[in-house]
């Protein structure tokens, strides 16, 4: 194909992507380095917007808490979701008849909007009319019929577990695909040599799954750092109760659109830049480690 023809085919996508994604993404950073008076841009601000994130209310108090919640969200999701996902995928492996059916059922909640999921579980866990607490009372577990979402000590964990419930079908699918790629001769040979299922899994299957686990970790990291809609549905933009479900994206939304601060654009852009660096840097570093690991496995 001639270069000019090729470019003609590319033009519409380039324009659309350039105008609505690349340009805003690049300017997002530049916003953070200027002083702002409402919507009018003033002089160059150096790093003063960034230092405001450390020194000034509400960032001084809210940012560390929110960031901690993002990290807990990531760690909790990794531990619970990966464990369940990997176990389920291992159990499903070789169940040729039911695997597809079950994989599909597990993936169903992923389809549902996080907003719907958040409101649905708010209704289900409602202390007065919630079916969950009604059921717990009925089967004699009154001591667990608590206002799970109303208590600042438990609310964050409800958010995390609900998110795991929604997304678990994803690692099940990915680990299922990765397990399909483990050469049968290897596991078969080990079994013939008298290795137990557990040994085969630890010594052969698991090491071969590490690239898939790494990929899931990177995607989970990005997902956890961006968390917005689900916590919004549970605790509104302020992370109720008492800021216990606050996340960095919620703080960003509040400071950009709800704060009324005169330099809101500058500080919230600085916050977006920091979050971007965390996400991009984290994802890049993890991918690099993974590649190195893959090279070592191959050699």
């Amino acid at each position, binding site marked *: *194909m001639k*270069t000019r*023809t*090729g470019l003609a*085919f*590319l033009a*519409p*996508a*380039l324009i*659309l*992507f350039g*105008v*609505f*994604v690349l*340009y*805003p*993404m690049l300017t*997002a950073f530049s*916003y953070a380095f200027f002083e702002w008076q409402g*919507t009018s841009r003033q002089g160059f601000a150096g790093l003063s917007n960034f230092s405001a994130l450390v020194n000034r209310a509400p960032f001084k108090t809210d940012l560390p808490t929110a960031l901690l919640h993002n990290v807990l969200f990531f760690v909790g999701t990794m531990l619970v979701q990966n464990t369940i996902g990997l176990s389920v995928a*291992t*159990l499903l*492996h*070789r*169940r040729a008849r039911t695997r597809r059916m*079950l994989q*599909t*059922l*597990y*993936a*169903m*909640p992923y*389809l*549902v*909007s996080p*907003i*719907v999921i958040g*409101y*649905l579980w708010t*209704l289900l866990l409602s202390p007065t*009319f919630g*079916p969950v607490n*009604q059921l717990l009372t009925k089967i004699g577990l009154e001591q667990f019929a608590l206002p799970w979402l109303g208590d600042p000590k438990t609310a964050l964990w409800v958010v995390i577990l609900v998110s795991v419930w929604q997304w678990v*079908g*994803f690692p099940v*699918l*990915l680990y299922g695909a990765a397990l399909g790629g483990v050469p049968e001769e290897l596991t*078969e040979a080990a079994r013939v040599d008298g290795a137990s*299922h557990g040994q085969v899994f630890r010594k052969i299957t698991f090491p071969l799954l590490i690239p898939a686990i790494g990929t899931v970790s990177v995607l989970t990291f*990005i997902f956890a*750092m*961006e968390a917005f*809609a689900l916590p*919004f*549905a549970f605790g509104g933009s302020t992370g109720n109760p008492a800021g216990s479900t606050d996340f960095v994206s919620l703080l*960003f*939304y509040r400071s*950009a659109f709800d704060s009324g601060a005169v330099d809101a654009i500058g500080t919230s852009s600085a916050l977006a830049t920091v*979050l971007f660096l965390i*996400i991009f840097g984290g994802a890049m570093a993890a991918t690099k480690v993974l590649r190195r690991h893959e090279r070592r496995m191959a050699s």
Partner: protein
Amino acid sequence: MTTTLTAADAAPTGLETSGASGASGRRPRRRRGSSASDPVGGVGASILLWGYAVLALAPLVIMVLNSFRTNADFITNPLGLPTSPTVAAYKEAWTVGSFGTYFVNSLAVTAGAVAISTAVSTMAAYGLARSRARIFRWIESLFLSGLMLPIHLAILPVFFLFDGFGLIDSRLGLALMYAAAGVPFSIFVLTTFFRQLPEELEEAAVLDGASPWQTFWRIMVPMVRPALATVAVFRFVPIWNDFLYPLVLLRSESKYTLPVGLTNFFGENATNYSALFAGLVITTIPLIVLFLFATKQIVAGLTAGMSK
């Protein structure tokens, strides 16, 4: 004599039988152990797996069941079943709660975005797959870098961009935004597909005097139809569900999409449980329908997400 013999014969036989049955009880298990082709964990695992399936679906089933009850019925017995099912909650949500309007808005924005995104990405993917010049590799990596970009963080510049174009509070603007955001994933999947098609196809078409556009439209596009379905279906879900962009970019209630409309409705009707459940079902139903018709595409899309 014969009887004792029989008895004597019978005794070992009995022993043997019990031994055999014991062995046959153990032997298949041993065989199962040594062969890798049997499921791990046996019946216990099956029960666990189906139990988990129930856990995955129960909340969604409860949501649907309660949407067919009256509010008074739900409050008196939250665990009850819809013994006399009624669609009153749906009527209320659809008209009083404006879910009819939100539904149409969501459908227009999502379908429009998917159509635009798939169209421009298919063209671009074809151009990328069939061009040799170095600039194309550069453009391709530019697009692919978009796979990792957390575009929600660009909401402020997008807001001002839209303000400049007069696109604030515009459903078309929202659709264009989503279309652009879908370009990297669509190009990523489609380029791989186009590269797998033999170039002889186009060479033959060129010999027959077809223009590049005719070759693309008449010959290449029909051949990547399965990939188009995957891309379109897989992009539909996140756009339908997206919350931040309509929350920030739409102003008038008559233009709200379902997730934002739902938030609005929840704020005003926090105790009208059955109508809330109906609203949740209305927001979810198109995706369930899509899923039932296109399970294969969605699963393919999820797995393609892995390789990014």
